[in-house]
């Protein structure tokens, strides 16, 4: 199978869906022909589909999401881009109070088929305002779906599913993932929401990891295999809806779970996953649930400090060993 980058996989999803459905349009800061998106995901799309369907906006996240939500309830299928997910705070009212609730508030008379693409995550030395992982906020808002592709394959397949979904989807991308390459079929496919990917079969410990952390978890698993510990690595791929079945079945098999997320530990996505395991698989746990997450701190600008707070292979291995 051919290999393409995560970035190109996202672009393919956008292009293929836009070609099929004229209601789909892209809206965001610098997404058009002049800058092609901050991470070049939308490169060439304005030329192909025209400036009306790939719309540059002023620097106003609130306006971007507000326009998208409004367009969505009229039957359009906007794909909004927020240049850095951290800045979704500026659009929070439009996201949490409008997009997430419109369908409910109008008694189902309308749907809100929109996607907000947002790069998140740390590791490139751009400090506290551009490095966060904010999935927990959106998890706490009923009405939103959250997709978090960790591979080019999932990026394309999940984005297609997101665009076709009739509900607002928070589409999490990770800055460090854009250049990574992976196999992506040329023929049409989608990745359904709510279906986790078992990245690696194992019997000793279940590692649940999201987005960029999937790669850290796989690397840790590879190293631990050499030490005789057999890890199962699960990528939920979507946090809302969450594939509880795969998660619980894995925990029933291994009896041990380590959850690896890049967001802050307190009230983080890992807390929700841990709670589900405790609620639904307590009698199968053979050790305390472990979480490897960012400490409750803003992401430091200093590269050594930034590396210090980010979950890495060493911390994953340490957590696994603590419960073996």
């Amino acid at each position, binding site marked *: 199978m051919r290999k393409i980058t995560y970035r190109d996989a996202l672009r393919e999803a956008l292009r293929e869906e836009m070609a099929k459905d004229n209601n789909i349009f892209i809206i965001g800061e610098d997404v058009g022909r002049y800058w092609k998106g901050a991470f070049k995901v939308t490169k060439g799309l304005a030329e192909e589909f025209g400036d009306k369907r790939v719309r540059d906006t002023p620097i106003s996240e609130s306006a971007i999401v507000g326009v998208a939500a409004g367009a969505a309830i009229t039957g359009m299928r906007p794909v909004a881009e927020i240049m850095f997910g951290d800045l979704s705070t500026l659009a929070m009212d439009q996201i949490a109070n409008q997009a997430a609730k419109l369908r409910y508030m109008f008694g189902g008379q309308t749907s809100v088929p929109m996607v907000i693409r947002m790069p998140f995550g740390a590791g490139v030395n751009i400090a506290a305002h551009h490095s966060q992982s904010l999935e927990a906020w959106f998890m706490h808002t009923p009405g939103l779906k959250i997709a978090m592709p960790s591979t080019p394959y999932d990026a394309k397949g999940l984005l297609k599913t997101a665009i076709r979904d009739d509900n607002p989807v928070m589409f999490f991308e990770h800055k460090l993932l854009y250049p990574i390459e992976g196999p992506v079929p040329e023929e049409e496919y989608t990745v359904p929401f709510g279906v986790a990917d078992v990245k690696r079969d194992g019997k000793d410990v279940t590692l649940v990891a999201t987005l960029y952390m999937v790669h850290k978890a796989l690397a840790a698993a590879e190293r631990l295999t050499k030490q005789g510990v057999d890890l199962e690595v699960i990528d939920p791929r979507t946090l809302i809806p969450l594939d509880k079945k795969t998660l619980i079945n894995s925990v029933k098999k291994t*009896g041990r779970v380590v959850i690896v997320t890049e967001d802050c530990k307190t009230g983080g996505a890992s807390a929700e996953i841990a709670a589900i395991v405790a609620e639904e698989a307590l*009698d199968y*746990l*053979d*050790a305390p649930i472990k979480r490897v997450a960012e400490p409750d701190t803003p992401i430091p600008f200093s590269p050594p400090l930034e590396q210090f707070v980010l979950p890495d292979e060493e911390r994953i291995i340490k957590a696994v060993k603590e419960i073996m």
Partner: protein
Amino acid sequence: MVTNVLMPRLSLTMKEGTVVQWFKKEGEKVEKGEPVVEVLSEKVTYEVEAPASGVLRKILAEEGMDVPVAETLGIITAPDEKLPEVAEVTGERIIASPAAKRLAREHDIDLAQIRGTGPEGRIVEEDVQRILRELEVVPRVREVIPLTGIRKTAAERVSASAKRAPHSTITMEVDMSDTARLREKLQVSYTDVLVKAVAKALREHAIINSTLEKDAIRIFADVNIGVAVATDRGLIVPVIRDADKKSIEEISSSLRELVDRAKQGNLSKEELTGGTFTITNLGMYGVDEFTPIINPPETAILGVGRVVERPVVKDKEIVVKPVMKLSLSFDHRVVDGAPAAEFLREVKTYLEEPSSLLR
């Protein structure tokens, strides 16, 4: 002095009991030996006596509560003694994972008996599984003997025989008085006489002297009697050829020689094959009767028990006679019970009137 009133164990299987009623109120005086509380286990009620004199200072288990065996129900102190701040908790908390607890619960295993191997001594699922494996009643193996040689051949032959031939065994008791006398006179063994009696009977009941091959019963012209011999190396069956044509003395001398060489492991292939019927004697081991397995491809085998003096009824009188039991196992595909019984009765008759064997 603080004395705890404990939930008693009223039976071996009792795990907990119910507090039925307290005979004393908190603060009331109690005498050592007088009933203070009534408890109920699955079957019986029981009055727990005060283990010490003093005042029932505190009731910990109210009426109606279920309390595990040996847990404290109440506390007796001296009349003016104050209760310690915290009642003593007996036993350490067992640290076990939920999975270990579930497995232990499912198999009724007491976690207190398990040594934990998890972090900080936590009992993990594997620890419970280890105990479960140990509890499985699998005897330990001391040594392994490979199945080879005579043992292997014997194993294959008896299992093939047991599988293929539907075995039926009939037993008759024989009065050995006359055979015993003949044996003395000729200086031969019971087996020697038996070989002759069987060989002669086989002549008349030829169907027993046969083999079943696919769709045909082949009746042998020769009467070759195999005699099972226990040796250090295993069971060996040397064959006395044309036993029907030999005298008891001839049988005796050839059998003695065969047995000697069998014990030395010096028998030729010819001396071990070609049997048409087998006699196996466990009488010397004190066996009365048994159900021998046919030596394939033969049709029947005679199991011989010990000769023992027993009271028997003869002419309406109880007399002591040397008797022996013969057990004939036969392949029911070849013969039915009646012909087999007729053959066995013939053998019995020869042994009871052995003079006929001398002709």
